[in-house]
C-alpha cells in the first residue's frame, strides 16, 4: 500500500510538472514573440533615420538625422541601441565617427564605462565590447583594467577590444596577460596583430621573455605583420632559441617577412639533425621567401623520408618560378620511380591545374571577346554599306 501511495504521488507530481512545462513552453513562446514584435515595431520606425544619417547624402540631412536620433525617447533608443553598437564595431571612416558621436551624446559610452565596475559578467563584457567599438585610445585605461577581471570571458572581450583600439600602449598589458595565462593566447595574438606596427618594439622585447609562449606569439605576430625591422631578431630566434615551438614559428615568420638574409638560416633549419616539424616548416618558408638560391637544397629535400618535409619542398619549388619548376621536372625525369619524383609530380600537378584552368578561361574569354567584336562588325556592315 505504501509503494502504491508513493507511486500515485509520483504520478501526480509528474503530471503537474509535465503540464507546468507545457504551459511554460507556450507562455514563453508567446511572450518572446510579443517582445520581438514590439522591438521590431520600434526599430522599424527609427531605423530609416539611422540609415539616413549613415548615408551622408549632404551635411544638412546628416545633421538633421543625428539630431532626430539624439531626440528619440528612451524606449525607441533602447530598441535601436543594439543595432548602433553593433554597427560601431563594423563601420569605418566618417560613418564610424558619426556613430561614435551618437553613442557618446546618448550616454551609451558613459553607461558602458560605469558598467565595467558592476556585478554581472555579461554586462561588463557587453560594456567592453561597446568601448572597443569606439576604437578610441581614451578608453585604453578602462579596458586594461578589465584585463584583470575575475571572469575569463570579460578578459577575452577586453583583450579583443584593446586590439581594436589600435593603441600601441596596450601591447605591454596584453603580453602580461600571456604571462599570467589569463587570456587565451589566440585572442591576445589577434589583438597584438591588430595593434599594427606600433606594437613592434614591445614584441621585439618580448622575444627575450622567459616564458616560451610569449616568445612564440611575439615571433609569430612579427611575421604576420611583416616586420622587416625585426628580421634579424627573428633569425636569432630560429637559430638560438631553446624552444622547439618558438623556432618553428620563427621559421614560418621569416618566410612571411621575406628578407633574403634569412635564406641561410632557413636552409640550416632543414638539416637532417633538426626536428622533423621544424624542417617541414622551414622547407615551406624557403618557398615563401621566393629566393631561387634555395632550389638545390629544396630538390634534395624532395627525397626526404619525412612526408611533410618532402611535400613542402615540392610545393616550395613549384612556387619559385621557372628554376623551381625545372628542378621538379628534372626530378621526375631522372628518378622516375623514386619518392622524390612522386612529390615532384604532386607539386607540379598542384601548380599546373590552376595554370591550365586560367589559360582555358583566358582563351575562352578571348574567343568570346572576338565573337562580340565580330558581331559588332557584322552589325555595322549595313551602316558601312549605306555610306
Amino acid at each position, binding site marked *: 500500500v505504501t*509503494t*502504491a501511495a508513493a*507511486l*500515485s504521488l*509520483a*504520478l501526480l507530481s*509528474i*503530471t503537474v*510538472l*509535465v503540464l507546468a*512545462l*507545457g504551459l*511554460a*513552453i*507556450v507562455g*514563453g*513562446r508567446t511572450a*518572446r514573440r510579443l517582445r520581438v514584435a514590439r522591438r521590431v515595431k520600434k526599430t522599424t520606425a527609427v531605423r530609416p533615420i539611422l540609415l539616413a544619417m549613415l548615408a551622408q547624402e549632404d551635411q544638412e540631412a546628416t545633421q538633421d538625422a543625428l539630431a532626430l536620433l539624439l531626440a528619440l525617447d528612451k524606449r525607441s533608443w533602447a530598441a535601436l541601441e543594439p543595432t548602433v553598437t553593433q554597427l560601431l564595431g563594423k563601420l569605418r571612416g566618417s560613418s564610424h565617427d558619426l556613430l561614435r558621436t551618437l553613442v557618446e551624446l546618448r550616454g551609451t559610452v558613459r553607461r558602458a564605462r560605469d558598467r565595467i565596475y558592476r556585478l554581472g559578467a*555579461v554586462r561588463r*563584457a*557587453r560594456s*567592453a*565590447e561597446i568601448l572597443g567599438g569606439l576604437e578610441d585610445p581614451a578608453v585604453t585605461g578602462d579596458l586594461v583594467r578589465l584585463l584583470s577581471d575575475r571572469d575569463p*570571458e570579460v578578459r*577575452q*572581450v577586453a583583450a*579583443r577590444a584593446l586590439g581594436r583600439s589600435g593603441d600601441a600602449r596596450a601591447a605591454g598589458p596584453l603580453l602580461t596577460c600571456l604571462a599570467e595565462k589569463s587570456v*587565451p*593566447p*589566440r*585572442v591576445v*595574438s*589577434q589583438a597584438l*596583430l591588430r595593434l599594427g606596427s606600433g606594437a613592434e618594439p614591445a614584441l621585439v622585447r618580448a622575444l627575450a621573455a622567459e616564458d616560451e609562449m610569449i616568445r612564440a606569439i611575439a615571433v*609569430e605576430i612579427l611575421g*604576420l605583420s611583416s616586420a622587416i625591422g625585426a628580421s634579424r631578431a627573428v633569425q636569432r630566434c630560429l637559430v638560438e632559441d631553446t624552444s622547439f615551438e618558438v623556432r618553428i614559428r620563427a621559421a614560418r615568420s621569416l618566410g612571411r617577412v621575406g628578407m633574403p638574409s634569412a635564406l641561410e638560416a632557413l636552409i640550416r633549419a632543414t638539416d637532417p639533425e633538426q626536428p622533423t616539424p621544424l624542417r617541414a616548416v622551414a622547407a615551406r618558408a624557403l618557398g615563401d621567401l621566393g629566393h631561387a638560391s634555395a632550389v638545390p637544397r629544396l630538390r634534395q629535400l624532395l627525397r626526404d623520408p619525412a*612526408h*611533410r618535409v*618532402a*611535400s613542402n619542398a615540392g610545393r616550395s619549388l613549384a612556387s619559385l618560378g621557372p628554376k623551381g619548376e625545372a628542378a621538379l621536372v628534372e626530378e621526375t625525369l631522372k628518378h622516375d620511380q623514386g619518392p622524390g619524383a*612522386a*612529390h615532384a*609530380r*604532386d607539386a607540379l*600537378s*598542384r601548380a599546373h*591545374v*590552376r*595554370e*591550365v*584552368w586560367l589559360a582555358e578561361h583566358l582563351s575562352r574569354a578571348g574567343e568570346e571577346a572576338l565573337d562580340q567584336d565580330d558581331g559588332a562588325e557584322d552589325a555595322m556592315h549595313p551602316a558601312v554599306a549605306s555610306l
Partner: protein
Amino acid sequence: MLDLLREPVVWLLHIIDLPILVYFLCINTSYLVLTVLAALELARHIRRLPFAGLEEAYASPLTQPVSVLMPAYNEEVGIVESVRAMLGLRYPEFEVIVVDDGSTDGMVARLQASFRLVQVPRVVPEDVAARGRVLEVWIPGDGVTPLVLVRKENGGRADALNAGVNAAQYPLVCMVDADSLLDPDALLTVSKPFADDPLHVIGTGGVIRAVNGCRVRAGRVVDIRMPKDWVARIQVVEYLRAFLLGRTGWSKLGALPLISGAFGLFRRDIVVAVGGFDPDSLGEDFELVTHMHRHMREKGVRDYRLVFVAEPVSWTEVPSTLKVLARQRRRWHRGLMQVLWRHRVMLLNPRYGRIGLFALPYYVLFELLAPVLELFGMFIVPIGLLVGAVNVPYALLFLSVAYGYAMLVSVAALAVEEFSFHRYSRWRDLGLAIAAAVLENFGYRQLTCLWRIQGLWSHLLRKKAVWGVMPRAGFDTGPDEVLATRAGTSP
C-alpha cells in the same frame, strides 16, 4: 500449468519489483540532472553569444585551418548538395576531403561533373594504417576550390576516415557525414574551444539534428520543420534529449564520453597518436573518443579537454523507416558493446579519472543494460498477468510512473530547446514535438529496446559486422534549387 508458473512468477516479481522501479527512477533522474546541467550551460552560452568573437575568428590569419573529412559510400543522392554546403562554410582556411569508400553508384561521376574534377598524382602519407588502398586523388580543375576527392578500395566508414586523416593537410580534422549539412558558422563555433584553450582542448563536438522535413536552399537549411513521418519526428525529440542536452551535461561535468561521428573536430596529431579510427569497430566515433581519453590518461596528461558545443548544428537525415532505424540501432548498440569491452580496463579505474569512474560505468548501467532490463520487464509483466500474479491497477500505476517520468524528461528537453534555440518556430511543429515525446513511449521505445538487444546478441555471437547502407531521400530543396542542379550549376 499456469498454476505451476504462478508461484515462481510471484516470487520473481516480488524480488525485482523494487529494484526495477529504482532503476527506472535512477535512469530518468540521471537524464533530468543532465538536462538541468545542460540548461544552465545553454543559458550561459546564449547570454555570451553576442561577444563570442566569431567575426574576429573569421577574419583572423591565426585561426587554425581545418580539414573536413566526408567519408561517403553510395551517396549519389545528396553528395553534391552536401559538398556545396561544406564549401560554403564561413571559415578562414579549410579543405573538404571526400573519401569515396569504393562506391558503386554514380556518386563519383556526379562529383566529377559538378566540380569539374581532374585527377592529380597526390602523394598520400600513411600516418595511420588504412586497409583499403588509395586508388586516385581528384581536385577541382580551377585549382582553387578547396576540395579533394580521395577514391579508395572499400573498407568501411572508419577506414575511409583513416584515409581522410592521412590526406588531411591541416592540424585540425573535422569528421562529418556525407549526408550532413552544417550551419554556416558551424566550423567557427565548434573550433572556438581550440582557440580559447589551445593547450588543453583535443576535441570538440557539435549538435546533430534531423534534416527530414526541413527546406534546404543552396546547401543551407533555410526553413526548419518537423519531419512528415512519426518515426523521424520521434527521433527529433530523441536527438534533442540525448545529443543536445545529454552531451552538454556530460561536457559540463568534464567527462564527455562521446562525440558524434556526424560532427566532431579533433587535433590531427592526437588522432594519429591513437592510431586513427578502429576499422573493426561499429562505433568508431565512440571508440576514438574513448581511446583519446585513455591515451591522454595513460600518458599522464590530466588537464586535457573534450568539449561539446551546443550551438553549431549538423543537419543529418535520420532513418524514416523502421527497417533502416532497426539496422542503425542494432549497429549503435553493438558498437557500444564493442567499445566498452575493448576499453574495459578503464571501468571504475581511478587512473582514468571521471571518464573511468563515472561516464563509462554510467554507459554500462544505463545505456548498455537498459534495454535488457526493459525487455525483461516487457516479458515478465504479461506472464504475470497471464498467471494472475500481477495486481493490474498496481502494474498500470507502475508503468504510468516509469513512462510518465520518461515523458517528463522529454518535455523538459523540449522546454530547454524552446528557451534556448527555439529552432522550430511553428506552433504546429511544437505540438508535433510534444506529441512525439508522448508517443515515443508507446511502441517506439519497446522496438528500439528489442533492436538494441539484437545488436548486443549479435556481438555476443560474434556475427560478422556489417555497416549497412542508409537509403537517402535527399533534401527538400524546393523548385528553384532543383532547376539549378539540373542546369549543372557549379559552385
